[in-house]
């Protein structure tokens, strides 16, 4: 399969992780080795095996539609890197060109 540096860069973008050129160079071959190892899951025929997404077969776990206490606004915002007017302040959403 061989993951190229540009593949890793694209994945980094999708995962929102800035990766330096050094990191990219290092990661690509490492990921290759790991992917080769995990590709073993394809070695056996599982075509008639159902997938297990949850280890315990529970279903229908519901909550009553009852309002519970929310956090005080100050607690909600306490860890915000930036806040304004009781709202979380985030950098502009669109890039320069958009």
């Amino acid at each position, binding site marked *: 399969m061989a*993951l190229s540096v540009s593949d*890793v860069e694209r*994945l*980094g*973008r*999708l*995962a*929102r*992780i*800035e*990766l*330096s050129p050094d*990191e990219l160079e290092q*990661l690509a071959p*490492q*990921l290759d*080795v*790991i*992917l080769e*190892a*995990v*590709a*073993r*899951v*394809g*070695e*056996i025929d*599982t075509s008639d*095996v*159902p*997938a*297990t*997404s*949850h*280890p*315990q077969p*529970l279903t229908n*776990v519901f*909550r009553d539609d009852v309002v519970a206490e929310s*956090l005080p606004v100050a*607690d*909600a915002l*306490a*860890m*915000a*890197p*930036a806040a304004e007017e009781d709202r*979380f302040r*985030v*950098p*502009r*959403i*669109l*890039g*320069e060109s958009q």
Partner: protein
Amino acid sequence: MTEILHRTAAELGADIAAGRLTSEEVTRAHLDRIDAVDADIRAFLHVDREGALEQARSVDARIAAGERLGPLAGVPLALKDVMTQVGVPTTAGSKMLEGYHAPYNATVTQRLLDAGVVILGKTNMDEFAMGSSTENSGFGPTHNPWNLERTPGGSGGGSAAAVAAFEAPLAIGTDTGGSIRQPGAFTGTVGVKPTYGGVSRYGQIALASSLDQPGPVARTVLDTALLHEIIAGHDPLDSTSLDEPTPPVVDAARSGDVSGMRIGVVTELGGEGYAPGVEAAFGRTVDQLADLGAEIVEVSCPNFEYALAAYYLILPAECSSNLARFEAMRFGRRVGDDGTHSAEDVMKLSRGAGFGAEVKRRIIIGTYALSAGYYDAYYGSAQKIRTLIQRDFDAAFEKADVLVSPTTPTTAFGLGERTDDPLAMYKNDLCTIPSNLAGNASASFPVGLSEDDQMPVGFHVMAPARADDRLYRVGSALERANEEVWGGPLLSRAPELKGAAK
């Protein structure tokens, strides 16, 4: 003081309840021990001296007022820093969360507080619980009390080391692929991964939701069971938590009767790659169980050989999603917000700076495994392997009441020894991973030192889902038999820590 430190949690709880000791004395003794040795061990990321003493005094006051509290009221505990706790930092071992304070208590934290257990502080761990040596912590590694040059295992190395170094009689761990059991094996302590859903995950910073399970860590089997009972039970805040009574773990720990129990040795978990000293200790222990009246059978779990591959797809996939919330918009260390960067840039820069190498590796792998076109081949196949592993377990549990193996292929390895080889690191978890994939209960018990290096060896016991009590029966039987041979607990043979001499 040493007297206090070497008592079991059950004894301390009884002494405190009877007024022979105060929780404050006990808590102070442990805080002093932390002061004395933790510079060498580095088990704690945060010690909540004042909070712990305050809590201890409150327990003492309640007992003095004639209140009857639980068996561990007033006993100190070390909490893995992956659990939220109001009033102290919660970092999950990540720079990303340096200084982060959660506005709510995890269910486990709350149950401990309600039971009067005194929380001494938060323990070190691999960043977001990704690792098997605690070397991936954003705040430096923890050292193994048996040999400071070796790792205590991971991700819960801090919790296991704190207990092994007598800094706390109890600790909480979380186990996604072995993070309670492998450090237990490496440090000569007891670690139990309960049945998935047995203990609430609410407030545990999620690594891989379908694999994660909090559990107890202690030096004795009974202490582990008492702690297990406090933290287990249904939680409406965790939809995957089991709405049924906790198995009778304390009774089982007190019984220690394995006569007539069918013990299945898993063929696939041994042989090549397993250290001779580990295999020898394992074989000795199986013989011991036979001597104690258990019936030994051999079972085969042919699909276990795919467990590691499935695990290293499912975990990264789930963690790539679980860790998406760490992007410095609502909390966490924000980087590059200088007016020139967009939110997307700032997310990337913050995550690039805040996450360590292993976290990045796994997120990238998980992103890849889930992406369109690869899903079926990777994540989809891994989930099917999961079914096959469950079937292996089901078949094996037809023949045996519990399954056994070494906890780890080797004893504790040296710090720095495997950091450059992720795959070698991953192989630590060969024996522990199947239980996370299948969701059944498992534990590691100390069964002696390896002839190879005089480091502790862990004996791995796997029980069916909801039969956690069987683990404690086996563990307790072994503990009694071994302590008779050793003349005391294994940890009494651990080297004296230098720092403590002063």
